[in-house]
């Protein structure tokens, strides 16, 4: 019996070493079986792709089993916080980048992958050095799962019909007011810009203010508010104008489609919006919701006389290894396989938006899993990238986001003027910074 067990191990080891240099199993070493827990959220497509990668990993490292813990985004955050609070988090976790700043506030929950010697050669160094992509003060607490670009998604047919060209011609935020006015006057059922409060906060305010001031609102480097009340007033007056001129649908209409729910908006489904601004990770969802509409990618708006472009490539999720894990080595092996193994890249396809490494993107383009428009969105966004860092994890932390969001709602419902909204935001952000 013993002889059989040993020979079984030996043959496994030999088979494994035949299959790749990535496997550090020497013929004499036998590994104790290890079970890794890996949690993520997503839809069916992503689950299947992820499970396929897990299978491939398990084949490559037969002594490691990965126990998948997956579900939808519903309740994921609550569960993760409960797990982290009690030291029972899985060995590899998927995290919402918006949550990271709050989670690493005391720095102890995740391993610094750089310090652990993780192989980052496939990544674009600039991309992963940003706080949104997991880099806090030089420590890589997480790695991006994909790349998202800020995108203007255009209803081609409607734009052409109304004589609006934002796909080839660059335009400014201010241009949108005149354009939007004309659109709505021509046809009451149509709007230029289909956005809800969520995106007015994250993308419109999040881009316009830095474009105006040339700096992030609360740069990570300084931790102090770099925008003045006047700056906010200026941008908020612009947003007020969007409402007043019917460039965007009324706030009380959009109340039914808050957050990431534009795909459920009948106006969107019926192609009544000329365009919207969103993240490339949402493109496929949005396009699938309006199958009768022909889409194209637009240019990205800049602020008139403002700072040179302020767009950056973001990521939809991060992967991290909690320090509570008992299997750090194996967890590292898994992440390494996940990011650097070509089979893994192929199997992942684009279920977490554009892949985070150039190599993976190439593979996806070759195997045809990369949606044409999503690729175009990334290309367009790359043309608008900032050289400077506009890292700002405070303003767009959950709480900061809510402050700005409430102010914009106030304007949309007419309970606040632009100036009052600006003051509200300054007050809120100041308390946050304390």
């Amino acid at each position, binding site marked *: 019996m013993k002889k059989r067990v040993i020979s079984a191990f030996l043959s496994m080891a030999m088979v494994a070493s035949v299959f790749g240099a990535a496997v550090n199993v020497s013929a004499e070493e036998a590994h104790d079986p290890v079970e890794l827990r890996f949690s993520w959220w997503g839809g069916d497509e992503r689950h299947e792709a992820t499970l396929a990668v897990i299978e491939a990993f398990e084949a490559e490292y037969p002594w490691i089993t990965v126990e998948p813990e997956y579900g939808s985004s519903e309740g994921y955050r609550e569960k993760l916080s409960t797990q*982290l609070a009690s030291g029972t988090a899985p060995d590899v976790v998927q995290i919402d980048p918006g949550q990271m700043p*709050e989670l*690493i506030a005391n720095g102890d929950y995740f391993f610094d992958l750089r310090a652990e010697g993780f192989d980052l050669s496939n990544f674009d160094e600039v991309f992963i050095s940003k706080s949104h992509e997991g880099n806090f003060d030089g420590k890589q607490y997480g790695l991006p799962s994909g790349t998202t670009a800020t995108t203007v998604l255009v209803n081609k047919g409607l734009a052409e019909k109304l004589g609006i060209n934002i796909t080839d011609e660059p335009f400014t935020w201010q241009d949108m007011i005149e354009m939007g006015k004309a659109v709505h006057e021509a046809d009451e059922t149509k709007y230029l810009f289909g956005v809800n409060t969520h995106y007015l906060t994250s993308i419109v305010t999040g881009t316009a203010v830095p474009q105006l001031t040339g700096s992030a609102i609360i740069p990570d480097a300084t931790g102090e508010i770099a925008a003045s009340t006047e700056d906010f007033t200026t941008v908020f007056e612009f947003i007020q104008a969007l409402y007043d001129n019917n460039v965007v649908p009324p706030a*009380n*209409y959009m*109340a039914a489609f808050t957050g990431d729910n534009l795909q459920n908006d009948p106006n969107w489904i019926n192609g009544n919006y000329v365009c919207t601004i969103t993240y490339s990770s949402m493109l496929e969802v949005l396009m699938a919701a309006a199958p009768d509409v022909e889409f194209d990618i637009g240019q990205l708006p800049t602020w008139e006389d403002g700072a040179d472009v302020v767009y950056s490539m973001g990521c939809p999720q991060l992967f991290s290894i909690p320090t509570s894990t008992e299997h750090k080595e194996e967890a590292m092996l898994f992440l390494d396989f996940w990011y650097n193994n070509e089979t893994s890249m192929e199997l992942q396809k684009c279920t977490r938006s554009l892949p985070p490494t150039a190599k993976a993107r190439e593979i996806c383009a070759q195997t045809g899993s990369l949606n044409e428009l999503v690729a175009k969105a990334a290309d367009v966004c790359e043309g608008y990238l900032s050289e400077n860092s506009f890292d700002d994890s405070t303003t767009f932390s959950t709480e900061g986001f809510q402050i700005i969001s*409430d102010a914009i709602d106030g304007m949309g419902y007419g309970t606040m003027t632009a100036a009052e909204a600006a003051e509200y935001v300054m007050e809120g952000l100041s308390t946050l910074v304390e």
Partner: protein
Amino acid sequence: MRSVFKFFRKRDNQGYLYILPWIIGFLLLQLYPFVSSLYYSFTDYTITNSPSFIGLENYIKLFTKDREFWNSLKVTVIYTIYTVPLKLVMALFVAVFLNRDIKGINLIRTLYYLPSLFGGSVAIALLWRLMFMDQGIINSMLAALNLPTVQFLGNTKTSLPLICSIEIWQFGSSMVMFLAALKQVPMSLYEAAEIDGAGKITSFFKITLPSITPIIFFTIIMQTISALQNFTSASVITGGGPLKSTYVLGLKLYTDGFSYFKMGYASATSWVIFVIIMIVTLLLFRSSSGWVYYEDEGQF
């Protein structure tokens, strides 16, 4: 040992034995979380750090600096005042109505109970949104009847009644309890009343209603407690909006705790809710001697 036996010989003391499971359960499984949350309320616990004592700071901040708190309190109280009585009346009315021998009564009762079976289902929440959307079915019907259409979801005045409506719609649980209670009323009482010449309505008010007051009381207490803590419907249908018009306390504390990771602060909020509920409950208990009829003649 002897004295233990003697102690439990006295019938009344045997009560301790019967409630033993609960005592063990409470000490083992409920006391610790209960006390922990009180402790957290005096700390700056943010889930990502170890809690450090900050005294009454959370409470002071809650009452003086937090504008959301007073709004949420108001919203929650209004929500409770709408839903509890309305749900009660609906449940009672329907239970009494269905407490009879009609063909197909089993199916009818099941169908009436159906809404409650879905609980805080997300499917139902979406449904409500779809029905009350600007182009939804409700507005279409209003338009068909030449009535003005209402922006239920987007209007700060109608958003709260909307959330209340889904709660009241699910009155089935109370209805079931009333049905059970109605069945407990002895037939002999009705018979005696009929012999004395009492009509149906008199019977109802003099026999039925008084007999089920313990359950009515129970329903009021439980519904009030649950309404003051509720947040699922608000969270899923309107997200607390628009403009925080449906931002009930339960939702605020959930957000503070799990979205902003301010667990210490959320714990303080929950203890404030606790105290409020306790006061309300105590008042209700006090009043109960005036109108609740117990078979054990109030000798609890």
